[in-house]
């Protein structure tokens, strides 16, 4: 590598197995908590409490959760007033009515209106309705988002491309303990007569966290 920089066609295969231009892997050494997780997992498997297969299955299950579940909930709430009323009152029970997982945590659904915009953050860690939205995005777990969403939510929303008028109240929800929050966005104009499937397709993860609002056309 580097001996004949102007003769790219003349590969010198005899001298090294290294691929030209290869960069070292970005693997870094394990953190304290990664070591602790591995040690605990190995111990649980060694002692027969869990199997490696059970751990893999659970990871697979968590990976299969996606914002499509939450979008179904929102689309139903937009089209069925009785469902919406139950969702706002007894969120977990309403999920069961839709054939979704009840969830291990109490669900609080918060409704956006023309005058009120809700935003969810967990300032302490990354609490999130995973069974409805999948795993949280990296930015949701970042210290930047966690500290600024409660301190200057309007500035954060502008960075996400959402510039709210002053007459819209911003209500931030710190998901810091046992509740899990799902934002019920306002149904956008121009969606009259749409099917639930069409409606669900415009409800994104970000809309249900509150950093975006759904639009009828992109």
């Amino acid at each position: 590598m580097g001996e004949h920089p102007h003769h790219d066609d003349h590969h010198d295969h005899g001298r090294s197995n290294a691929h030209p231009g290869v960069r070292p892997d970005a693997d870094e050494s394990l953190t304290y908590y990664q070591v602790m997780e591995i040690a605990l997992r190995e111990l649980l498997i060694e002692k027969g409490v869990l199997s490696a297969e059970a751990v893999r299955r659970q990871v697979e299950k968590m990976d299969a959760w996606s914002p499509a579940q939450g979008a179904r909930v929102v689309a139903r709430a937009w089209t069925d007033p009785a469902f919406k009323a139950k969702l706002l009152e007894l969120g977990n029970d309403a999920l069961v009515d839709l054939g979704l997982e009840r969830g291990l945590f109490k669900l609080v659904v918060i409704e956006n209106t023309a005058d009120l915009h809700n935003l969810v953050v967990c300032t302490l860690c990354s609490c999130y309705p995973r069974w409805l939205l999948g795993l949280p995005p990296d930015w949701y777990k970042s210290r930047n988002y966690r500290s600024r969403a409660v301190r200057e939510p309007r500035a954060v929303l502008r960075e996400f491309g959402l510039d709210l008028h002053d007459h819209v109240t911003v209500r931030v929800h710190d998901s810091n303990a046992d509740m899990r929050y799902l934002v019920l966005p306002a149904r956008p104009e121009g969606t009259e007569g749409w099917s639930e499937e069409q409606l669900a397709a415009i409800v994104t993860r970000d809309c249900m966290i509150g950093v975006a609002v759904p639009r009828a056309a992109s």
Partner: protein
Amino acid sequence: MIAASTAGVAARFRTGDRVTVRWADVPGHIRTPWYIRGRTGVIERLCGAYPNPEELAYARSGLPARPLYRVRFAQAAVWPDYAGSAADTLDVEIYEHWLEPA
């Protein structure tokens, strides 16, 4: 974990009560965010009763379960230089033993 309901929870505060979050600097697994300690807000609702996370974190039962509230704060009362509408609010979940009548 999920609590069945708020029925039967012996709660000290009611929706609408003004409360102040205790200011305390204590070690351990505390779910009361630092930024909200010492601030005054209004009980938005009782969420139910949950095992105390400060005990659960150390493999204790956390029982008896503690009433948990959502407390609503005016942003301007949390951050004196808050840039935004005076109507903007912040809801935080606070366990009863961190609250005092305001």
